[in-house]
């Protein structure tokens, strides 16, 4: 198993927190900006949605991603946007393709807040190992998008089997500060720019605990302990502040990322397993003037769900991974439901090229573990764990992650209840374009890598 760093997500209260920290703490930080000419963000998205037909999904059970459920519902989309979501009485305008979805289910496109597709692509050969710049404990200067191989066959499996329409690609967790993430639309493209989610904010991947101290300690280098982890982190933030205060400093890519965090423009996605360590990170963030959006791989969030709620920090978790490393020894299947019950936010993430194909199933397992201890989270809310909540974490919830009029038509039609093991995506639309159809063998993306190979275009 590839144990990699975690991603994070954030809530509305978190957005507010970011704005406040900007006002309260970044007057100094803004000093450096005065001399900077606003430049277009480099490597901009070139993604343009593909053509689609006005479509009406009729008769399905609809989960809107924000806790809403409509039985015998109707979902309309056209020109890449959701037009209306309603019941059986919703009128279908002329010119719409009508798809009979009786007995089927409709959800927003699935979103993975923690993926390494493209930067750890398959085949998993050394030449493809592009996820950890493990040459320094802090590499905020590297950007995951510069590692992403768009031909990773994993993107196609995530679409066809997992209904994934957007995902965040993170650097690995070898480093305390692993670099910038990139959020992608799950559309096949020759370039990463052609996949970049237009306007999605960047995140900085951070990691606490065993990985950084092991990687650098084994090289006889700092950090070799958890206290070393914190010392290096704190000094790095202090240096970043000094950089922001110095209008004459030479340009520094890493410090630009850190300044972006301190200015509230870049989110923090923090790989962190243990409850006590998350509590320390929360205080470090307060000390330095930034905000953690989400803890990823947060297997012990259930122990401090109240603290996480109070601080508006989300937990991106697996259903029930545990025991593979010391800091995962207290993982329990009830983690997600105990977090949700406390009123803190939950995302089901994958960190895995196989797991990303079954986020719906992982959420269902977590839900079931709760039911057995009397915590009954409705299906409609559980669907939000792998749709809307993930979108919030990535800062894209105003555009996708739920079925609401005017949002991107990122939609999955499932051939049954998505929380059942017997269910698979039947059709997947991204911005209203049908990019997967289980009934049409040609509507299945095939990576350049797989052309002419055994199994090309197979069901997979």
């Amino acid at each position, binding site marked *: *198993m590839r*144990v990699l760093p975690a991603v994070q997500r954030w809530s509305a209260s978190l957005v507010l927190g970011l704005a406040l920290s900007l006002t309260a703490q970044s007057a100094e930080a803004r000093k450096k900006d005065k001399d900077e000419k606003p430049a277009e963000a480099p490597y901009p998205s070139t993604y343009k949605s593909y053509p689609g037909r006005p479509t009406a999904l009729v008769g399905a059970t609809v989960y809107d991603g924000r806790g809403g459920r409509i039985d015998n519902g109707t979902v309309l989309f056209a020109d890449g946007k959701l037009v209306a979501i309603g019941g059986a009485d919703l009128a279908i305008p002329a010119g719409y393709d009508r798809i009979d979805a009786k007995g089927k289910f409709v959800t927003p496109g699935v979103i993975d807040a923690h993926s390494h597709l493209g930067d750890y692509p*398959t*085949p*998993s*050969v050394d030449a493809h190992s592009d996820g950890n710049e493990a040459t320094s404990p802090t590499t905020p200067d590297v950007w995951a998008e510069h590692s992403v191989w768009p031909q990773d*066959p*994993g993107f196609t*499996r995530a679409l066809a*089997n997992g209904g994934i329409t957007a995902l965040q690609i993170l650097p690995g967790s070898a480093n305390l500060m692993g670099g910038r993430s990139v959020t992608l639309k799950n559309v096949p493209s020759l370039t990463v720019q052609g996949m970049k989610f237009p306007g999605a904010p960047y995140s900085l991947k951070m990691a606490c605990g065993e990985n950084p101290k092991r990687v650098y300690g084994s090289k006889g280098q700092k950090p070799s302990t958890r206290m070393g982890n914190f010392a290096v982190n704190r000094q790095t933030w202090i240096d970043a502040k000094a950089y922001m205060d110095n209008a004459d400093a030479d340009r520094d890519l890493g410090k630009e990322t850190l300044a972006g965090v301190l200015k509230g423009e870049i989110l923090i996605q923090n790989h962190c397993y243990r409850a006590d360590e998350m509590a320390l990170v929360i205080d470090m963030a307060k000390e330095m003037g930034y905000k953690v959006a989400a803890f990823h791989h947060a297997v012990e969030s*259930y*122990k*401090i*769900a*109240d603290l996480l709620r109070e601080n508006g920090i989300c937990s991106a978790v697996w259903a*029930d*991974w*545990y*025991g*593979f*490393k*010391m800091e995962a*020894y*207290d*993982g*329990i*299947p*009830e983690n997600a439901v*105990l977090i949700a019950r*406390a009123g803190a936010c939950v995302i089901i993430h994958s960190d895995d*090229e*196989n797991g990303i*194909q*079954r986020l719906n*199933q992982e959420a*269902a*397992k977590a*839900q*079931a*573990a709760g039911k*057995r*201890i009397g915590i009954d989270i409705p299906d409609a809310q559980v669907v939000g764990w792998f749709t809307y909540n993930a979108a919030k974490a990535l800062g894209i919830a105003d555009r996708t992650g739920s079925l609401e009029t005017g949002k991107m038509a990122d939609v999955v039609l499932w*051939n049954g209840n998505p*929380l*059942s*093991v*017997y*269910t*698979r995506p039947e059709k997947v639309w991204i911005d209203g374009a049908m990019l997967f159809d*289980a*009934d049409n*063998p040609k509507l299945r993306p095939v990576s350049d*890598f*797989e052309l002419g*190979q*055994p*199994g090309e275009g*197979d*069901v*997979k």
Partner: protein
Amino acid sequence: MSRCALIAAALAACAFPFAAQAQDIAITNATVATGDGGAPIEHGTVVVRGGKVVAAGAGVAVPAGIQTVDGTGKWVTPGLFTAMTDLGLWDVGAVSESNDTEADESPFNAALDVAPALNPSSQHIAISRAGGVTRATVAAFNGNSIFAGQGAVIDLADDAAMVMKPRAFQFVELGEAGAKLAGGSRVAAHVALRNALREAKELAALPAGAARQSDAMLTRPDAMALARVLDGSEPLYVGVERAADIRAVLALRSEFPKLKLVLVGAAEGWLVASEIAAAHVPVITMPLRDLPAQFEMLAATQSNVGRMAKAGVKVAIGMFTGGNQPRYASQQAGNLVALARLPGAAGLTWGEAFAAISSVPAEISGFGGKAGVLAPGAVGDVVLWDGDPLELSSAPVEVWIDGVEQPLENHQTRLRDRYKDLDKSVLPKAYDW
């Protein structure tokens, strides 16, 4: 749960080894899946006596005076049998002192025998048991040789007698990993295999205590272990994925006719399914692998199991190691049922899928009709589920092994109970147990 109840539960768990009496029980009016590949039977009954299954199915009479369990609304199955696991060999994967899955600095390889190292108190045993797994095979990983050593068949009961059969099979790796271990190529791996079997043959023919040829490369214990493979008394499990590698393995039997082969992995098995079936070689695989994770599995697809089964190959779901836990077996099987509904895909029926995690792995492991099945004379391993056992929402409510009801408590359930509320107002959580 109240503190008293917690203590009671803990005491019950502690006391269990001293009260391990097989119970005679009848579970009535449940949906019964016997593990034989057939469809589940509604309103069925299962009777266990003296630690063995006596009867299972519809129209089974409940013996007078026997303790009965009402199975209304529930499902009853044999305990799951998970093939090729690392159960009992580790506590924490990344804590090497607690991890006996691999010995890359040992001078021995084929002679390695997991049986004396197995720990029935491992949390992974308790957690897997709570997931309905009652039997498994356990193998070590390769250390510095293509031979990983000898695996065992175990039960997961809460008692000390864990090993059903030690030295149940030998494992050899002949794919990409085997090539690396052998010195850098598949060519070297095949020479290493043939040389090892030749040395085993020579040693077996020598009088006891006689000196071996001076050019022997294997240690004596390794050669002795392989002699059992050569004469077919111990099956040879072969790790391979690529279609060409599978063909090369099947061809071994023309040189070594007594080899009892089992393929482990076989991600491209569907490409050579008819050849595997004709050779009567069973397969243990992890079904949902559908990525070209290595060049040896470019044709990987979730339809692999369904296509092999259709061609007549005996296929078990297995290969549960590390974070890929044995309790996920039912999810893997359930996904194969889902595939049967997908256009162009190949899956299994419900009965076939359940058999792939019960009777089929038991048969491949040498316990056909004895484990993984609710049939007269089989071990009294019975799981009562709160719903369809392949569905994500279901879980075991009671588990019996050899007719003995098992505790389902473990480190995870104790943490769950402690943190079900976050109240620290009277005492720290450390006093809540």
